[in-house]
């Protein structure tokens, strides 16, 4: 699945998007954040405060317990500050 990062999450991860293949035991957004954080110090730093991170699946806001099954695109970003 494709993962996108925005704002300071993007800066901390060091890239705007990538394609990942998490193991099938990773079923929710929270589990995906935990799995990414276990992969390297870079991800651990980007996701060090998981409660602050917002997520969207296929362009719709989701909560951290949302299932990632079938997602084409998952995005991680800080709270929005537009307008």
């Amino acid at each position, binding site marked *: 699945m494709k993962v*996108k990062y*925005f*704002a*300071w999450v993007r800066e901390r991860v060091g890239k705007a998007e990538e394609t990942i293949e998490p193991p099938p035991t990773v079923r929710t957004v929270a589990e995906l954040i935990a799995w990414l954080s276990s992969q390297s110090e870079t991800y651990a730093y980007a996701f060090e405060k998981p409660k602050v991170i917002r997520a*969207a699946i296929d*362009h*719709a*806001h989701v909560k951290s317990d949302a299932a990632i099954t079938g997602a084409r695109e998952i*995005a991680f*970003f*800080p*709270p*929005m*500050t*537009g*307008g």
Partner: protein
Amino acid sequence: MTPPVATCPVTVRIQEDDFDIAREIALLTKSRTDIGAVVSFSGICRADEDSANIAALTLEHYPGMAEEEIKRHVDEAISRWPLNGVTAIHRVGRFMPGENIVLVLTASQHRQAAFQAAEFLMDYLKTSAPFWKKEESATGTGWVEAQARDDEAAARWTKS
């Protein structure tokens, strides 16, 4: 007799270029005689955001999702208030103090609907549309933090 359904043209754009409020209002109202009220909100880059002296502001967005998220809230506004037209334009890029950032226009027969829909849309643009601001000031560069008061403003529209 049911009243005739008002047509409510919707324009949602994300762009780097500035917008022209007079032109957007004219597009919304021209050759119509059923609109009694037009409310416009323009958001402008300020120099004194939270007392730091802003030299410039950079706006980043999530292409695709940003448009869809705004359209979802415009549809929600149309379902809540009798609107005759809605325009929402959000700029992205780098802005100097005094420059336009965002425009919301609402048209209705009566002023209350136009005012409320414009406030509703701005509250959701602030808290729900995927845009992020980065400030450049004398003390450095940093991402703007979300404001609790914006979440509270958006929460008042939640149906109980």
